[in-house]
Protein backbone atom coordinates (compact mmCIF):
# COMPACT_ATOMS: atom_id res chain seq x y z
CA UNK A 1 0.00 0.00 0.00
CA UNK A 2 1.64 3.24 -1.08
CA UNK A 3 1.28 6.37 1.02
CA UNK A 4 -0.10 8.45 -1.81
CA UNK A 5 -2.79 5.88 -2.45
CA UNK A 6 -3.96 6.25 1.14
CA UNK A 7 -4.29 10.00 0.82
CA UNK A 8 -6.52 9.59 -2.20
CA UNK A 9 -8.90 7.62 -0.03
CA UNK A 10 -8.73 10.15 2.73
CA UNK A 11 -9.60 12.94 0.31
CA UNK A 12 -12.30 10.86 -1.29
CA UNK A 13 -13.91 10.06 2.01
CA UNK A 14 -13.81 13.59 3.34
CA UNK A 15 -15.14 15.03 0.13
CA UNK A 16 -17.91 12.45 0.27
CA UNK A 17 -18.69 13.48 3.82
CA UNK A 18 -18.88 17.13 2.84
CA UNK A 19 -20.95 16.18 -0.19
CA UNK A 20 -23.49 14.43 2.01
CA UNK A 21 -23.68 17.43 4.30
CA UNK A 22 -24.08 19.73 1.32
CA UNK A 23 -26.84 17.61 -0.22
CA UNK A 24 -28.88 17.56 2.95
CA UNK A 25 -28.82 21.31 3.35
CA UNK A 26 -29.65 21.83 -0.32
CA UNK A 27 -32.65 19.51 0.04
CA UNK A 28 -33.93 21.54 2.94
CA UNK A 29 -33.88 24.81 1.11
CA UNK A 30 -35.79 23.32 -1.82
CA UNK A 31 -38.63 22.28 0.42
CA UNK A 32 -38.97 25.71 1.93
CA UNK A 33 -39.36 27.36 -1.43
CA UNK A 34 -42.92 26.07 -1.71
CA UNK A 35 -45.24 28.47 0.05
CA UNK A 36 -48.69 27.50 1.15
CA UNK A 37 -51.54 29.50 -0.28
CA UNK A 38 -54.58 27.41 0.60
CA UNK A 39 -55.78 27.34 4.20
CA UNK A 40 -55.18 23.67 5.14
CA UNK A 41 -57.58 21.57 7.19
CA UNK A 42 -55.16 21.05 10.01
CA UNK A 43 -52.29 23.14 11.21
CA UNK A 44 -49.43 22.59 13.62
CA UNK A 45 -47.77 25.06 15.93
CA UNK A 46 -44.62 24.68 17.98
CA UNK A 47 -44.41 26.72 21.16
CA UNK A 48 -40.89 26.76 22.56
CA UNK A 49 -41.09 27.74 26.19
CA UNK A 50 -39.08 27.60 29.41
CA UNK A 51 -39.21 25.17 32.32
CA UNK A 52 -42.03 26.04 34.73
CA UNK A 53 -44.70 26.69 32.08
CA UNK A 54 -45.31 23.05 31.20
CA UNK A 55 -48.64 22.76 33.04
CA UNK A 56 -49.74 26.24 32.04
CA UNK A 57 -49.46 25.61 28.33
CA UNK A 58 -50.94 22.12 28.58
CA UNK A 59 -54.12 23.72 29.91
CA UNK A 60 -53.98 26.67 27.57
CA UNK A 61 -53.38 24.64 24.40
CA UNK A 62 -56.57 22.63 24.95
CA UNK A 63 -58.51 25.84 25.47
CA UNK A 64 -57.01 27.57 22.45
CA UNK A 65 -57.53 24.59 20.12
CA UNK A 66 -61.24 24.55 21.02
CA UNK A 67 -61.53 28.30 20.50
CA UNK A 68 -59.72 28.17 17.14
CA UNK A 69 -61.79 25.23 15.89
CA UNK A 70 -64.98 27.08 16.76
CA UNK A 71 -63.77 30.31 15.17
CA UNK A 72 -62.28 28.98 11.91
CA UNK A 73 -63.19 25.30 11.70
CA UNK A 74 -59.51 24.45 11.51
CA UNK A 75 -57.91 21.75 13.66
CA UNK A 76 -54.76 22.91 15.41
CA UNK A 77 -52.21 20.73 17.18
CA UNK A 78 -49.81 22.59 19.41
CA UNK A 79 -46.52 21.02 20.31
CA UNK A 80 -44.58 22.19 23.34
CA UNK A 81 -40.93 22.19 24.14
CA UNK A 82 -39.52 23.08 27.55
CA UNK A 83 -36.09 23.64 29.03
CA UNK A 84 -33.94 26.39 30.49
CA UNK A 85 -34.88 29.67 28.83
CA UNK A 86 -31.41 30.35 27.39
CA UNK A 87 -31.02 26.80 26.13
CA UNK A 88 -34.39 26.99 24.42
CA UNK A 89 -33.48 30.27 22.70
CA UNK A 90 -30.28 28.62 21.45
CA UNK A 91 -32.23 25.66 20.08
CA UNK A 92 -34.36 28.07 18.04
CA UNK A 93 -31.23 29.88 16.81
CA UNK A 94 -29.74 26.54 15.85
CA UNK A 95 -32.77 25.63 13.78
CA UNK A 96 -35.58 24.34 16.00
CA UNK A 97 -38.60 25.57 14.03
CA UNK A 98 -40.65 27.34 16.69
CA UNK A 99 -43.63 29.34 15.47
CA UNK A 100 -43.82 31.14 18.80
CA UNK A 101 -41.48 31.50 21.78
CA UNK A 102 -42.63 32.11 25.34
CA UNK A 103 -39.49 32.60 27.40
CA UNK A 104 -38.36 33.75 30.83
CA UNK A 105 -36.68 36.98 29.87
CA UNK A 106 -36.59 39.52 27.09
CA UNK A 107 -32.85 39.04 26.74
CA UNK A 108 -33.37 35.58 25.26
CA UNK A 109 -35.89 36.88 22.71
CA UNK A 110 -33.53 39.78 21.93
CA UNK A 111 -30.95 37.16 21.01
CA UNK A 112 -33.40 35.73 18.45
CA UNK A 113 -34.00 39.23 17.11
CA UNK A 114 -30.26 39.78 16.79
CA UNK A 115 -30.03 36.62 14.65
CA UNK A 116 -32.74 37.97 12.34
CA UNK A 117 -35.37 35.38 13.32
CA UNK A 118 -37.71 37.95 14.80
CA UNK A 119 -38.52 41.38 13.40
CA UNK A 120 -37.33 44.31 15.52
CA UNK A 121 -39.88 45.85 17.85
CA UNK A 122 -41.32 42.52 19.03
CA UNK A 123 -41.80 43.87 22.53
CA UNK A 124 -44.40 46.35 21.26
CA UNK A 125 -46.35 43.77 19.28
CA UNK A 126 -48.54 42.62 22.16
CA UNK A 127 -49.90 44.48 25.17
CA UNK A 128 -47.91 45.05 28.38
CA UNK A 129 -44.45 44.71 26.81
CA UNK A 130 -45.58 41.45 25.20
CA UNK A 131 -45.93 39.87 28.65
CA UNK A 132 -49.40 38.31 29.06
CA UNK A 133 -48.73 37.69 32.73
CA UNK A 134 -46.17 38.76 35.28
CA UNK A 135 -44.50 37.23 38.26
CA UNK A 136 -42.15 38.40 40.93
CA UNK A 137 -39.36 37.12 43.14
CA UNK A 138 -40.32 35.96 46.63
CA UNK A 139 -38.79 34.00 49.52
CA UNK A 140 -39.67 30.44 50.34
CA UNK A 141 -38.85 29.60 53.98
CA UNK A 142 -39.32 26.53 56.13
CA UNK A 143 -42.51 26.12 58.16
CA UNK A 144 -42.88 28.64 60.94
CA UNK A 145 -40.07 30.76 59.47
CA UNK A 146 -37.60 29.69 62.20
CA UNK A 147 -34.97 32.23 61.13
CA UNK A 148 -37.52 35.05 61.02
CA UNK A 149 -36.68 36.10 57.47
CA UNK A 150 -38.96 38.98 56.57
CA UNK A 151 -37.10 41.11 54.06
CA UNK A 152 -34.00 41.32 51.90
CA UNK A 153 -31.79 42.63 54.73
CA UNK A 154 -32.47 39.43 56.71
CA UNK A 155 -31.21 37.33 53.81
CA UNK A 156 -27.69 38.79 53.99
CA UNK A 157 -27.26 38.33 57.75
CA UNK A 158 -24.35 36.09 58.71
CA UNK A 159 -25.34 32.48 59.38
CA UNK A 160 -28.36 32.54 57.07
CA UNK A 161 -28.07 30.00 54.29
CA UNK A 162 -29.58 31.18 50.99
CA UNK A 163 -30.42 29.02 47.96
CA UNK A 164 -30.48 30.65 44.54
CA UNK A 165 -29.32 29.24 41.20
CA UNK A 166 -26.35 30.45 39.20
CA UNK A 167 -27.14 33.68 37.29
CA UNK A 168 -24.66 32.62 34.62
CA UNK A 169 -26.73 29.57 33.69
CA UNK A 170 -30.26 30.35 34.85
CA UNK A 171 -32.70 33.02 33.75
CA UNK A 172 -34.64 32.84 37.00
CA UNK A 173 -31.44 33.39 38.95
CA UNK A 174 -30.90 36.63 37.07
CA UNK A 175 -34.29 37.88 38.20
CA UNK A 176 -33.37 36.92 41.80
CA UNK A 177 -30.10 38.79 41.55
CA UNK A 178 -31.70 41.89 40.05
CA UNK A 179 -34.43 41.89 42.68
CA UNK A 180 -31.76 42.01 45.39
CA UNK A 181 -29.85 44.65 43.43
CA UNK A 182 -32.95 46.83 43.12
CA UNK A 183 -33.64 46.58 46.84
CA UNK A 184 -30.05 47.52 47.67
CA UNK A 185 -30.15 50.52 45.31
CA UNK A 186 -33.40 51.74 46.79
CA UNK A 187 -32.08 51.33 50.32
CA UNK A 188 -28.78 53.10 49.67
CA UNK A 189 -29.94 56.03 47.52
CA UNK A 190 -28.71 54.39 44.33
CA UNK A 191 -25.18 53.94 45.68
CA UNK A 192 -23.86 51.17 43.42
CA UNK A 193 -20.79 50.40 45.52
CA UNK A 194 -23.04 49.66 48.48
CA UNK A 195 -25.38 47.63 46.32
CA UNK A 196 -22.46 45.54 45.10
CA UNK A 197 -21.40 44.96 48.70
CA UNK A 198 -24.93 43.86 49.53
CA UNK A 199 -24.86 41.26 46.75
CA UNK A 200 -21.42 40.08 47.80
CA UNK A 201 -22.85 39.53 51.29
CA UNK A 202 -25.81 37.68 49.83
CA UNK A 203 -23.70 35.32 47.73
CA UNK A 204 -21.42 34.66 50.72
CA UNK A 205 -24.49 33.02 52.22
CA UNK A 206 -25.11 30.78 49.21
CA UNK A 207 -23.67 27.26 49.78
CA UNK A 208 -24.82 25.76 46.47
CA UNK A 209 -25.31 27.39 43.08
CA UNK A 210 -27.56 25.09 41.08
CA UNK A 211 -27.49 25.47 37.33
CA UNK A 212 -31.26 25.92 36.99
CA UNK A 213 -34.24 27.19 38.97
CA UNK A 214 -35.83 23.75 39.32
CA UNK A 215 -32.52 22.36 40.60
CA UNK A 216 -32.39 25.04 43.29
CA UNK A 217 -35.96 24.22 44.35
CA UNK A 218 -34.94 20.55 44.63
CA UNK A 219 -31.92 21.47 46.75
CA UNK A 220 -34.11 23.45 49.13
CA UNK A 221 -37.15 21.19 49.23
CA UNK A 222 -35.69 17.67 48.90
CA UNK A 223 -32.19 18.03 50.32
CA UNK A 224 -33.25 20.26 53.19
CA UNK A 225 -30.39 22.66 52.50
CA UNK A 226 -30.74 26.38 53.20
CA UNK A 227 -32.98 28.62 55.29
CA UNK A 228 -34.46 30.57 52.42
CA UNK A 229 -34.98 29.95 48.69
CA UNK A 230 -35.15 32.92 46.32
CA UNK A 231 -37.61 31.95 43.65
CA UNK A 232 -40.28 32.86 41.13
CA UNK A 233 -43.61 33.45 42.81
CA UNK A 234 -45.24 30.84 40.56
CA UNK A 235 -42.69 28.20 41.58
CA UNK A 236 -43.08 29.12 45.25
CA UNK A 237 -46.87 28.77 45.04
CA UNK A 238 -46.43 25.45 43.31
CA UNK A 239 -44.02 24.26 46.01
CA UNK A 240 -46.36 25.33 48.80
CA UNK A 241 -49.48 23.88 47.20
CA UNK A 242 -48.13 20.71 45.63
CA UNK A 243 -44.62 19.68 46.63
CA UNK A 244 -44.39 19.91 50.38
CA UNK A 245 -47.82 20.79 51.64
CA UNK A 246 -47.47 22.49 55.00
CA UNK A 247 -43.68 22.35 55.11
CA UNK A 248 -43.01 25.76 53.59
CA UNK A 249 -44.22 29.32 53.74
CA UNK A 250 -43.98 32.15 51.26
CA UNK A 251 -42.57 35.44 52.52
CA UNK A 252 -43.17 38.60 50.52
CA UNK A 253 -40.31 41.08 50.92
CA UNK A 254 -40.99 44.83 51.23
CA UNK A 255 -40.11 45.30 47.58
CA UNK A 256 -39.24 43.05 44.63
CA UNK A 257 -38.88 43.05 40.89
CA UNK A 258 -41.63 42.88 38.32
CA UNK A 259 -40.73 39.86 36.20
CA UNK A 260 -42.27 39.94 32.75
CA UNK A 261 -41.86 36.65 30.89
CA UNK A 262 -42.40 37.77 27.30
CA UNK A 263 -43.89 36.09 24.23
CA UNK A 264 -43.12 36.58 20.54
CA UNK A 265 -43.82 35.21 17.08
CA UNK A 266 -40.73 33.80 15.41
CA UNK A 267 -41.36 35.68 12.16
CA UNK A 268 -38.93 33.80 9.99
CA UNK A 269 -40.42 30.40 10.90
CA UNK A 270 -44.04 31.56 10.91
CA UNK A 271 -43.62 33.08 7.43
CA UNK A 272 -42.07 29.85 6.19
CA UNK A 273 -44.85 27.69 7.71
CA UNK A 274 -47.58 30.15 6.79
CA UNK A 275 -48.60 30.36 10.43
CA UNK A 276 -48.32 34.12 11.07
CA UNK A 277 -52.04 34.56 11.54
CA UNK A 278 -52.62 31.65 13.89
CA UNK A 279 -49.43 32.38 15.85
CA UNK A 280 -50.69 35.92 16.44
CA UNK A 281 -54.09 34.60 17.51
CA UNK A 282 -52.39 32.07 19.82
CA UNK A 283 -50.45 34.74 21.67
CA UNK A 284 -53.31 37.26 21.67
CA UNK A 285 -55.69 34.75 23.19
CA UNK A 286 -53.40 34.61 26.22
CA UNK A 287 -54.73 38.10 27.00
CA UNK A 288 -58.38 37.06 26.75
CA UNK A 289 -60.34 36.50 30.00
CA UNK A 290 -60.08 32.72 29.49
CA UNK A 291 -56.34 32.88 28.84
CA UNK A 292 -55.80 35.13 31.83
CA UNK A 293 -57.81 32.76 34.01
CA UNK A 294 -55.50 29.88 32.99
CA UNK A 295 -52.43 32.02 33.74
CA UNK A 296 -53.79 32.81 37.21
CA UNK A 297 -54.71 29.18 37.90
CA UNK A 298 -51.11 28.29 37.11
CA UNK A 299 -49.85 30.90 39.58
CA UNK A 300 -48.88 33.63 37.10
CA UNK A 301 -50.14 37.14 37.89
CA UNK A 302 -52.75 38.08 35.29
CA UNK A 303 -52.65 41.46 33.52
CA UNK A 304 -56.45 41.57 33.26
CA UNK A 305 -57.98 43.65 36.08
CA UNK A 306 -61.12 41.54 36.53
CA UNK A 307 -59.23 38.25 36.71
CA UNK A 308 -56.63 39.82 39.01
CA UNK A 309 -59.43 40.94 41.34
CA UNK A 310 -60.79 37.39 41.45
CA UNK A 311 -57.39 35.98 42.42
CA UNK A 312 -56.53 38.72 44.92
CA UNK A 313 -56.15 36.17 47.71
CA UNK A 314 -53.48 34.27 45.82
CA UNK A 315 -51.39 37.27 44.80
CA UNK A 316 -50.81 39.69 47.70
CA UNK A 317 -50.06 43.27 46.70
CA UNK A 318 -46.32 43.96 46.74
CA UNK A 319 -44.28 47.00 45.76
CA UNK A 320 -42.41 46.26 42.54
CA UNK A 321 -39.81 47.99 40.41
CA UNK A 322 -39.10 47.12 36.78
CA UNK A 323 -35.82 46.10 35.24
CA UNK A 324 -35.87 49.29 33.18
CA UNK A 325 -35.91 51.36 36.38
CA UNK A 326 -32.97 49.67 38.03
CA UNK A 327 -30.81 48.57 35.12
CA UNK A 328 -32.10 50.22 31.96
CA UNK A 329 -33.38 47.02 30.36
CA UNK A 330 -32.03 43.53 29.78
CA UNK A 331 -29.26 44.31 27.36
CA UNK A 332 -27.63 46.72 29.80
CA UNK A 333 -28.28 44.46 32.78
CA UNK A 334 -26.64 41.54 31.02
CA UNK A 335 -23.56 43.54 30.08
CA UNK A 336 -23.18 45.13 33.49
CA UNK A 337 -23.94 42.17 35.75
CA UNK A 338 -23.81 38.80 34.04
CA UNK A 339 -21.38 38.78 31.16
CA UNK A 340 -17.90 37.35 31.74
CA UNK A 341 -15.87 39.50 34.11
CA UNK A 342 -18.90 41.67 35.00
CA UNK A 343 -20.25 42.39 38.50
CA UNK A 344 -21.39 38.88 39.37
CA UNK A 345 -18.01 37.42 38.42
CA UNK A 346 -16.23 40.12 40.42
CA UNK A 347 -18.13 39.09 43.55
CA UNK A 348 -16.45 35.69 43.32
CA UNK A 349 -12.98 36.95 42.48
CA UNK A 350 -10.56 35.63 45.09
CA UNK A 351 -8.80 38.44 46.93
Amino acid at each position, binding site marked *: *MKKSHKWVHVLLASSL*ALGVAGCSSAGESKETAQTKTVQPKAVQLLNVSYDPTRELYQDYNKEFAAYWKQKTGQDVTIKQSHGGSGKQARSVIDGLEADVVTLALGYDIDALEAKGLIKPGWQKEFAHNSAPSTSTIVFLVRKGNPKQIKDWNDVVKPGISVITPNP*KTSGGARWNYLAAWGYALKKNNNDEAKAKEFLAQLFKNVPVLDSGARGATTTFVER*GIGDVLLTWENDALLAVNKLGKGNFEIVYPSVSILAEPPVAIVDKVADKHGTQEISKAYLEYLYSPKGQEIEARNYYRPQDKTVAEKYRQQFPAIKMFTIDEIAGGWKKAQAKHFSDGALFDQIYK*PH
Partner: protein
Amino acid sequence: MKKYSVIPGFSLTLGCTLLYVSLIVVLPLSLLFYKAASLKWSDFWKIITDERVLASYRVSFGTSLIAACLNAGFGLLLAWVLVRYRFPGRKLIDALVDLPFALPTAVAGIALTTLYAGNGWIGHGLEKLGIKVAFTPLGIIVALTFIGLPFVVRTVQPVLEEVEIHVEEAAASLGATSWQIFHRVIAPQIVPALLTGVALAFARALGEYGSVVFISGNMPMKTEITPLLIMSKLEQFDYAGATALAAVLLVASFCILLAVNVIQWRLSRYRMAR
Protein backbone atom coordinates in the same frame (compact mmCIF):
# COMPACT_ATOMS: atom_id res chain seq x y z
CA MET B 1 -1.09 -6.75 -1.02
CA LYS B 2 -2.46 -10.19 -1.95
CA LYS B 3 -3.89 -11.36 1.28
CA TYR B 4 -7.03 -13.43 1.48
CA SER B 5 -9.82 -11.60 3.24
CA VAL B 6 -13.47 -12.39 3.79
CA ILE B 7 -14.80 -8.96 2.90
CA PRO B 8 -13.85 -7.34 -0.37
CA GLY B 9 -10.78 -5.24 -0.80
CA PHE B 10 -8.72 -3.17 1.54
CA SER B 11 -9.26 0.04 -0.38
CA LEU B 12 -13.04 -0.23 -0.23
CA THR B 13 -13.16 -1.03 3.48
CA LEU B 14 -10.67 1.71 4.32
CA GLY B 15 -12.72 4.14 2.26
CA CYS B 16 -15.85 3.21 4.20
CA THR B 17 -13.98 3.48 7.49
CA LEU B 18 -12.71 6.93 6.65
CA LEU B 19 -16.11 8.09 5.44
CA TYR B 20 -17.74 6.87 8.62
CA VAL B 21 -15.12 8.39 10.89
CA SER B 22 -15.20 11.70 9.06
CA LEU B 23 -18.98 11.91 9.22
CA ILE B 24 -19.34 10.84 12.83
CA VAL B 25 -16.18 12.22 14.43
CA VAL B 26 -14.04 14.49 12.29
CA LEU B 27 -16.70 16.68 10.73
CA PRO B 28 -18.45 17.74 13.97
CA LEU B 29 -15.14 18.26 15.72
CA SER B 30 -13.62 20.28 12.90
CA LEU B 31 -16.72 22.47 12.92
CA LEU B 32 -16.04 23.06 16.61
CA PHE B 33 -12.53 24.27 15.83
CA TYR B 34 -13.91 26.27 12.94
CA LYS B 35 -16.24 28.10 15.30
CA ALA B 36 -13.49 28.68 17.83
CA ALA B 37 -11.33 30.03 15.00
CA SER B 38 -13.63 33.03 14.68
CA LEU B 39 -11.76 34.38 17.71
CA LYS B 40 -8.61 36.41 17.54
CA TRP B 41 -5.66 34.48 18.96
CA SER B 42 -5.24 36.95 21.82
CA ASP B 43 -8.94 36.73 22.75
CA PHE B 44 -8.82 32.95 22.56
CA TRP B 45 -5.86 32.93 24.91
CA LYS B 46 -7.57 35.33 27.29
CA ILE B 47 -10.68 33.17 27.45
CA ILE B 48 -8.89 29.89 28.09
CA THR B 49 -6.52 31.32 30.72
CA ASP B 50 -9.07 33.31 32.72
CA GLU B 51 -8.73 32.78 36.46
CA ARG B 52 -12.07 31.06 36.87
CA VAL B 53 -11.45 28.89 33.84
CA LEU B 54 -8.06 27.83 35.21
CA ALA B 55 -9.71 26.95 38.52
CA SER B 56 -12.24 24.85 36.63
CA TYR B 57 -9.46 22.96 34.81
CA ARG B 58 -7.96 22.13 38.18
CA VAL B 59 -11.31 20.82 39.41
CA SER B 60 -12.13 18.96 36.20
CA PHE B 61 -8.73 17.35 35.62
CA GLY B 62 -8.08 16.65 39.30
CA THR B 63 -11.39 14.98 40.03
CA SER B 64 -11.37 13.06 36.74
CA LEU B 65 -7.89 11.73 37.47
CA ILE B 66 -8.75 10.64 41.01
CA ALA B 67 -11.98 9.04 39.79
CA ALA B 68 -10.10 7.19 37.04
CA CYS B 69 -7.53 5.89 39.54
CA LEU B 70 -10.26 4.72 41.92
CA ASN B 71 -11.91 2.95 39.01
CA ALA B 72 -8.58 1.36 38.07
CA GLY B 73 -8.31 -0.32 41.46
CA PHE B 74 -11.90 -1.28 42.03
CA GLY B 75 -12.60 -2.02 38.39
CA LEU B 76 -9.70 -4.46 38.33
CA LEU B 77 -10.95 -6.09 41.52
CA LEU B 78 -14.47 -6.38 40.13
CA ALA B 79 -13.26 -7.85 36.85
CA TRP B 80 -11.09 -10.32 38.75
CA VAL B 81 -13.94 -11.50 40.94
CA LEU B 82 -16.33 -11.79 37.99
CA VAL B 83 -13.84 -13.82 35.94
CA ARG B 84 -12.18 -15.99 38.55
CA TYR B 85 -15.01 -17.00 40.82
CA ARG B 86 -18.38 -18.63 40.32
CA PHE B 87 -20.99 -17.57 42.84
CA PRO B 88 -24.75 -17.05 42.90
CA GLY B 89 -25.70 -13.60 41.61
CA ARG B 90 -22.57 -13.26 39.45
CA LYS B 91 -24.61 -12.70 36.30
CA LEU B 92 -26.61 -10.05 38.08
CA ILE B 93 -23.51 -8.13 39.19
CA ASP B 94 -22.14 -8.49 35.70
CA ALA B 95 -25.29 -6.85 34.33
CA LEU B 96 -25.23 -4.12 37.00
CA VAL B 97 -21.77 -3.01 35.88
CA ASP B 98 -23.23 -1.69 32.63
CA LEU B 99 -25.95 0.30 34.33
CA PRO B 100 -23.98 3.58 34.57
CA PHE B 101 -23.72 3.44 30.76
CA ALA B 102 -27.47 3.14 30.31
CA LEU B 103 -28.64 5.57 32.96
CA PRO B 104 -29.30 9.17 31.91
CA THR B 105 -26.59 11.11 33.69
CA ALA B 106 -29.06 13.52 35.26
CA VAL B 107 -30.75 10.56 36.94
CA ALA B 108 -27.38 9.42 38.29
CA GLY B 109 -26.67 12.95 39.54
CA ILE B 110 -29.98 13.28 41.34
CA ALA B 111 -29.75 9.79 42.87
CA LEU B 112 -26.19 10.32 44.12
CA THR B 113 -27.03 13.75 45.52
CA THR B 114 -30.01 12.30 47.36
CA LEU B 115 -27.72 9.69 48.93
CA TYR B 116 -24.79 11.92 49.77
CA ALA B 117 -26.49 15.19 50.76
CA GLY B 118 -26.48 16.09 54.46
CA ASN B 119 -29.95 14.59 54.87
CA GLY B 120 -29.30 11.53 52.71
CA TRP B 121 -28.62 8.01 54.01
CA ILE B 122 -24.89 7.98 53.41
CA GLY B 123 -24.29 11.72 53.68
CA HIS B 124 -25.96 11.82 57.06
CA GLY B 125 -23.58 9.26 58.54
CA LEU B 126 -20.52 10.81 56.92
CA GLU B 127 -21.42 14.28 58.13
CA LYS B 128 -21.40 12.98 61.69
CA LEU B 129 -17.77 12.04 61.05
CA GLY B 130 -17.18 15.53 59.71
CA ILE B 131 -16.98 14.49 56.05
CA LYS B 132 -19.07 16.49 53.60
CA VAL B 133 -19.54 14.84 50.20
CA ALA B 134 -22.33 16.55 48.26
CA PHE B 135 -21.46 20.09 47.11
CA THR B 136 -17.71 19.56 47.55
CA PRO B 137 -15.03 18.23 45.17
CA LEU B 138 -15.52 14.87 46.88
CA GLY B 139 -19.05 14.77 45.51
CA ILE B 140 -17.74 15.36 41.98
CA ILE B 141 -15.33 12.43 42.43
CA VAL B 142 -18.21 10.21 43.52
CA ALA B 143 -20.24 11.09 40.42
CA LEU B 144 -17.29 10.64 38.07
CA THR B 145 -16.35 7.31 39.66
CA PHE B 146 -19.91 6.15 39.13
CA ILE B 147 -20.03 7.00 35.43
CA GLY B 148 -16.52 5.67 34.75
CA LEU B 149 -16.92 2.29 36.42
CA PRO B 150 -17.91 0.19 33.37
CA PHE B 151 -14.89 1.24 31.29
CA VAL B 152 -12.20 -0.47 33.35
CA VAL B 153 -14.26 -3.57 34.12
CA ARG B 154 -15.27 -4.08 30.51
CA THR B 155 -11.79 -3.59 29.07
CA VAL B 156 -10.00 -5.80 31.60
CA GLN B 157 -12.57 -8.61 31.80
CA PRO B 158 -12.06 -10.21 28.37
CA VAL B 159 -8.27 -10.08 28.76
CA LEU B 160 -8.46 -11.72 32.16
CA GLU B 161 -10.58 -14.48 30.69
CA GLU B 162 -7.81 -15.16 28.18
CA VAL B 163 -5.11 -15.51 30.83
CA GLU B 164 -4.13 -19.19 30.86
CA ILE B 165 -4.52 -20.66 34.30
CA HIS B 166 -1.92 -23.37 33.66
CA VAL B 167 0.75 -20.75 33.12
CA GLU B 168 0.10 -19.65 36.67
CA GLU B 169 0.19 -23.27 37.80
CA ALA B 170 3.52 -23.70 36.08
CA ALA B 171 4.87 -20.60 37.79
CA ALA B 172 3.65 -21.85 41.15
CA SER B 173 5.24 -25.28 40.60
CA LEU B 174 8.52 -23.50 39.89
CA GLY B 175 8.25 -21.93 43.33
CA ALA B 176 6.92 -18.48 42.56
CA THR B 177 5.08 -16.66 45.32
CA SER B 178 1.54 -15.38 44.73
CA TRP B 179 2.84 -11.83 44.42
CA GLN B 180 5.42 -12.93 41.87
CA ILE B 181 2.77 -14.73 39.86
CA PHE B 182 0.58 -11.68 39.79
CA HIS B 183 3.42 -9.29 39.14
CA ARG B 184 5.34 -11.37 36.56
CA VAL B 185 2.66 -13.49 34.89
CA ILE B 186 -0.73 -11.82 35.09
CA ALA B 187 0.07 -8.10 35.23
CA PRO B 188 1.99 -7.87 31.93
CA GLN B 189 -0.98 -9.36 30.14
CA ILE B 190 -3.65 -7.07 31.60
CA VAL B 191 -1.81 -3.76 31.98
CA PRO B 192 -2.45 -2.56 28.41
CA ALA B 193 -6.19 -3.22 28.77
CA LEU B 194 -6.22 -1.60 32.20
CA LEU B 195 -4.55 1.50 30.78
CA THR B 196 -7.12 1.71 28.02
CA GLY B 197 -9.94 1.45 30.53
CA VAL B 198 -8.46 4.12 32.78
CA ALA B 199 -7.86 6.45 29.84
CA LEU B 200 -11.42 6.02 28.60
CA ALA B 201 -12.84 6.58 32.07
CA PHE B 202 -10.71 9.71 32.45
CA ALA B 203 -11.63 11.17 29.07
CA ARG B 204 -15.30 10.44 29.68
CA ALA B 205 -15.15 12.10 33.11
CA LEU B 206 -13.58 15.25 31.68
CA GLY B 207 -16.59 15.98 29.55
CA GLU B 208 -19.23 14.84 32.04
CA TYR B 209 -21.85 17.47 32.83
CA GLY B 210 -25.24 15.99 33.65
CA SER B 211 -24.44 14.03 36.78
CA VAL B 212 -21.93 16.51 38.19
CA VAL B 213 -23.96 19.72 38.21
CA PHE B 214 -26.39 18.26 40.71
CA ILE B 215 -23.82 17.14 43.24
CA SER B 216 -21.04 19.69 42.82
CA GLY B 217 -22.79 22.81 44.07
CA ASN B 218 -21.17 24.76 41.18
CA MET B 219 -19.33 27.25 43.39
CA PRO B 220 -17.06 29.53 41.36
CA MET B 221 -13.34 28.84 41.92
CA LYS B 222 -14.16 25.81 44.12
CA THR B 223 -16.44 23.27 42.50
CA GLU B 224 -17.10 24.59 39.01
CA ILE B 225 -16.23 22.08 36.31
CA THR B 226 -15.13 23.25 32.85
CA PRO B 227 -18.25 21.89 31.09
CA LEU B 228 -20.36 24.10 33.38
CA LEU B 229 -18.41 27.17 32.25
CA ILE B 230 -19.04 26.09 28.67
CA MET B 231 -22.75 26.02 29.45
CA SER B 232 -22.64 29.43 31.11
CA LYS B 233 -20.91 30.89 28.06
CA LEU B 234 -23.62 29.40 25.85
CA GLU B 235 -26.20 30.95 28.13
CA GLN B 236 -24.78 34.33 27.14
CA PHE B 237 -24.96 33.30 23.47
CA ASP B 238 -21.16 33.40 23.45
CA TYR B 239 -20.65 30.51 21.02
CA ALA B 240 -17.03 31.37 20.29
CA GLY B 241 -16.06 31.43 23.98
CA ALA B 242 -17.85 28.14 24.60
CA THR B 243 -16.16 26.42 21.68
CA ALA B 244 -12.79 27.77 22.81
CA LEU B 245 -13.16 25.96 26.14
CA ALA B 246 -14.56 22.90 24.41
CA ALA B 247 -11.52 22.84 22.13
CA VAL B 248 -9.22 22.87 25.17
CA LEU B 249 -11.02 19.88 26.69
CA LEU B 250 -10.99 18.10 23.36
CA VAL B 251 -7.29 18.59 22.74
CA ALA B 252 -6.52 17.49 26.31
CA SER B 253 -8.59 14.31 25.93
CA PHE B 254 -7.03 13.56 22.59
CA CYS B 255 -3.48 13.99 23.93
CA ILE B 256 -4.25 11.69 26.86
CA LEU B 257 -5.70 8.97 24.64
CA LEU B 258 -2.80 9.32 22.24
CA ALA B 259 -0.25 9.08 25.07
CA VAL B 260 -1.92 5.92 26.34
CA ASN B 261 -1.80 4.42 22.87
CA VAL B 262 1.90 5.23 22.60
CA ILE B 263 2.58 3.62 25.99
CA GLN B 264 0.69 0.50 24.97
CA TRP B 265 2.52 0.28 21.71
CA ARG B 266 5.84 0.51 23.54
CA LEU B 267 4.74 -2.10 26.04
CA SER B 268 3.72 -4.57 23.38
CA ARG B 269 6.97 -4.02 21.46
CA TYR B 270 8.92 -4.54 24.66
CA ARG B 271 7.07 -7.76 25.33
CA MET B 272 7.60 -8.98 21.79
CA ALA B 273 11.28 -8.21 22.08
CA ARG B 274 11.66 -10.33 25.16
